[in-house]
C-alpha cells in the first residue's frame, strides 16, 4: 500500500479589500487548486477576512536564504541617495 498522503501543501494568499495586495496567511493541504481554494476559504476567511484568494503549490515557491540575508540585501545599504531625505532643500522651497 502506498504511503498515507495528507495531500500536497498550498500556500494561501488573501486580499482583504479591493486595491490592496494579497497577503500570505498560511497554508492548506489539498489535492488540486480548486480544493485548495475551497479549503482556504473555510480555514482563512470564516469572518469575511477576504475578497480574493490565491493558492500556490508550496514547492513552486523559491525563497532567498536567510544565511545570505546580509550580503544579499547589502547593495542597497550604501545608497542613501535613493531616499528623498538624502537631499537638503532650502527652507521656503515648496512642493519638493
Amino acid at each position, binding site marked *: 500500500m*502506498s*504511503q*498515507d*498522503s*495528507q*495531500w500536497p*501543501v498550498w500556500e494561501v494568499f488573501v486580499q482583504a479589500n479591493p486595491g490592496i495586495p494579497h497577503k500570505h496567511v*498560511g*497554508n*492548506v*493541504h489539498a*489535492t*488540486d487548486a480548486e*480544493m485548495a481554494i475551497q479549503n482556504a476559504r*473555510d*480555514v482563512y476567511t*470564516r*469572518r469575511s477576512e477576504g475578497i480574493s484568494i490565491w493558492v500556490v503549490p508550496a514547492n513552486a515557491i523559491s*525563497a532567498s*536564504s*536567510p*544565511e545570505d540575508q546580509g550580503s544579499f540585501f547589502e547593495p542597497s545599504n550604501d545608497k542613501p541617495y535613493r531616499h528623498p531625505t538624502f537631499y537638503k532643500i532650502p527652507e521656503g522651497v515648496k512642493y519638493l
Partner: protein
Amino acid sequence: MEDQKQIEAFEAKIASGVKIEPKDWMPEAYRKQLIRMMSQHAHSEIVGMLPEGNWITRAPSLRRKAILLAKVQDEAGHGLYLYSATETLGIDRTELLEQLHTGKAKYSSIFNYPTLTWADIGAIGWLVDGAAIMNQTALARGSYGPYSRAMVRICKEESFHNRQGYEIMMHLAQGTPEQKAMAQDALNRWWWPAIMMLGPSDDQSPNSDQLMRWKVKMESNDAIRQRFIDRTVPQADFIGLSLPDKDLKFDETTGHYTHGPINWDEFFEVIKGNGPCNAKRLKARSDADKKGRWVRDAALAYAEKKKLKAA
C-alpha cells in the same frame, strides 16, 4: 556541539524582540521543544472538537446549534493553523498524527472529561476556552514567528467561544431551578479540571528558565492560573453560581484570590492516560484517520487523473 557564537546571536535576537523564522538557525533543543508544544496544542484543538461535537445534534435551539457548529469549526481551523505552523519546523503532518495516535504526543488533559449535559457546553466555552485564552495571549508574544502569528489569529477567534459559553451558563442560571442546578453541576465538575489544564504548578515544572529566555514559554503556569482565577471568580458571582472551592477567598493585601489545594494526582493520572475518556478520545481520532484514508487516496487519484486528461 552547537557553536556558542550561533547560540549567542540567536539569544540576542530573541532578547531584542526579533521573531525566529522557519529557515533561521535555531538550537536543536528549541526546535524540539516547539514541535512538542505546538503539536500538543494542535492535537488539543482537534481532540477538543469531540466533547463539544457530542452536543451538536442535541443543542436546545437552532441558534445554539448554529453557534456550536461555528465554534467547533473554528477549533478545526485552529488545529489546521497549528499543524501547518508545526510543519515549518521540518516535521510533516502524517508523522504528527501518528505521534498522537500512538500516544507518543499528548493533548490537553481537559478533553478527557465527558460532556454529560448541555450545561457542559456552557462550562467549556466559559472556562476551558477562557483558560486557553489566558495561555494563548501569552504565547502570542512568543519568539517563533509562525507559532506567534497562529496565536494572534486564534486569540481573535477565541473570544466568541468564551462569550457564547458564558451566555449559555447565564441563561441556565437565570432559568428554572432545574436549569440552574444543571449549570451549577457543570461548573462543579469543570472548575478544577479547567484550573489544572494550565499545567503543573511552578515547583513541579522544571527547566523553564531556558524556555523563558528563548520566549517559548512567556509566563509561568501559576501566574497564568492566577490571572484566570482572578478574572473568572467575579464572572461566576455575577450569575449567582458558586465555585466548588471552600478555601477560595479574596486577599485584600495582594488583590488576588487564593484557592484551595489542587488535586495534582488526578491531573497526572489523566495525563498518563487514565482519565475518564482518554481511550475513547484516542480511538475516535485514530478511527477517523483510518476510515478517512480511502477518501484521501481516492481524492488524490482523481486529481491526478484529471491532471493527465488535461495534459
